[in-house]
């Protein structure tokens, strides 16, 4: 990606298609035939309650799991086709951040470039600083992940993903365990990246505010199936009782006057 392309916000995302994806663990079906497409440069959010199979789906798209049936196409090429994983750059931001605890923040962010020997050490250092600054993390390069807050760890994980110059970023519960302010920052970063580098983003979350805030299109996943796919407005207007229940669920304080 050139600086000019970055400046013009030229789209360089990839098209992702998931066709008839099925997966079972020990005979228990987790994905029951998933079909959807994500357009280049789109922010596609898959929302759903915990345990609905969202993370398993994401792991299939990045190639960490092998499906029992179905396929994943990147720009029309099956993920299993030799060379596809090398041809298209993909990155994943894990729910926990998954930073390497034995490395400093700077080493974590530069790991991809260092291990693949893509740049000289001075150049790697410059890129790492640039990415950290982009995410508002100036001056923490020498710290270890254990010294960071949850929000900072998530942003470092995004910086690490950006170093790959990805055409597809997968976010797994990017706002879980974060306070509302940090969650807003992460949401802004997802939108900023879309605007700046035109990356295709696939976000898995059960955070309704984030989902409706960043999504171009939304899908609702429930018990291994997609109940609906559409724009945020269309999902909001859905008559599906499960979607309605998920979207309208709110904490209702009960009377505990008889409690000790």
């Amino acid at each position, binding site marked *: 990606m050139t600086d000019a392309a970055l400046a013009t916000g030229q789209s360089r995302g990839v098209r992702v298609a998931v066709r008839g994806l099925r997966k079972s663990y020990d005979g228990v079906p987790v994905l029951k035939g998933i079909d959807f497409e994500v357009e280049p440069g789109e922010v596609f959010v898959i929302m759903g309650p915990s345990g609905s199979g969202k993370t398993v789906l994401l792991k299939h798209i990045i190639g*960490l799991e092998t499906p029992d049936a179905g396929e994943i196409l990147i720009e029309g090429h099956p993920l299993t086709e030799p060379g596809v994983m090398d041809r298209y750059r993909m990155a*994943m931001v*894990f*729910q926990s951040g*998954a*930073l390497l605890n*034995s490395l400093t923040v700077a080493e974590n962010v530069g790991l*991809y470039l260092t*291990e*693949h020997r893509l740049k000289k050490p001075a150049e790697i250092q410059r890129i790492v600083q640039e990415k950290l600054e982009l995410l508002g993390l100036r001056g923490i390069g020498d710290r270890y992940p254990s010294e960071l807050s949850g929000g900072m760890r998530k942003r470092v994980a995004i910086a690490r993903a950006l170093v790959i110059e990805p055409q597809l970023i997968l976010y797994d519960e990017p706002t879980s365990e974060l306070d509302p302010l940090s969650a807003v920052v992460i949401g802004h970063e997802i939108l900023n990246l879309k605007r700046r580098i035109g990356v295709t983003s696939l976000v898995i979350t059960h955070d309704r505010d984030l989902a409706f805030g960043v999504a171009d299109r939304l899908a609702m996943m429930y018990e291994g199936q997609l109940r609906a796919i559409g724009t945020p407005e269309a999902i909001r207007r859905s008559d599906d009782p499960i979607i309605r229940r998920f979207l309208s669920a709110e904490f209702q304080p009960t009377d505990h006057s008889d409690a000790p």
Partner: protein
Amino acid sequence: MFRDLGQMLVLLGRTVRALPYTFRQLEKIYQQLFEIGNASLLMVCVLSVFIGGVTTLHTGTELTARGLSSVIGGLVGIAICKELAPTLVSILIAGRIGSAMTAEIGSMQVYQEIDALRTMNINPVHYLVLPRLVAILIALPVLVIFSILVGWIGGAVVAHYNQRIGLSFQAFFLNLRQVVDVTDVLGGLFKSAVFAVVIGTVACHQGFATVGGPRGIGRSVTKAVVNCIVFILILDYFLTRLWLYVET
């Protein structure tokens, strides 16, 4: 059990295939060498002094009582270099270094760090297993040489100062030099090299096989150390048979 064995052989095969990339991992190999050497040198020294000492106590008192004190040096020397140093130092390293390898890789597995490596197209075998296996393959035989020398000295000291033995240093080492030759030491080093591969492979495999949280890591560490010790003791017999066959 057999599935684990198969998976370990596959992991070893992948690591052997990755050997041409060793030069890319030199920094990590140096780090691991420092970890193994730094963590183990003092322990190996203490262990070896007492191995030499207790072997001399057992054999020396009996042999001296039968007027055979002149052969103590050879007997202790050969026992240490062919059997005791390679086996006991390997067991020590399995407990000290093998457990650390399993805990580190197991923790990375549990906390998705290995998945993160895969998403960056970084091969975990190249990044994690290769440097550890190469480092332990270099470090363990070096520690065994050190252990042999310290063990001999420990044996000689006990032979000299124990009142029931009272053998001079000269007499101990004269007999040792007459009995022990280079092939005996090489036999011990050959064993230790095989044990190093066993420790590295078992420990790394068990790390990758870790599931669950901290309790899973604990289970994996225990299993790795126990498996290493069992494999070392079983292989010790067959390697001794093999070396005796080669020697003759």
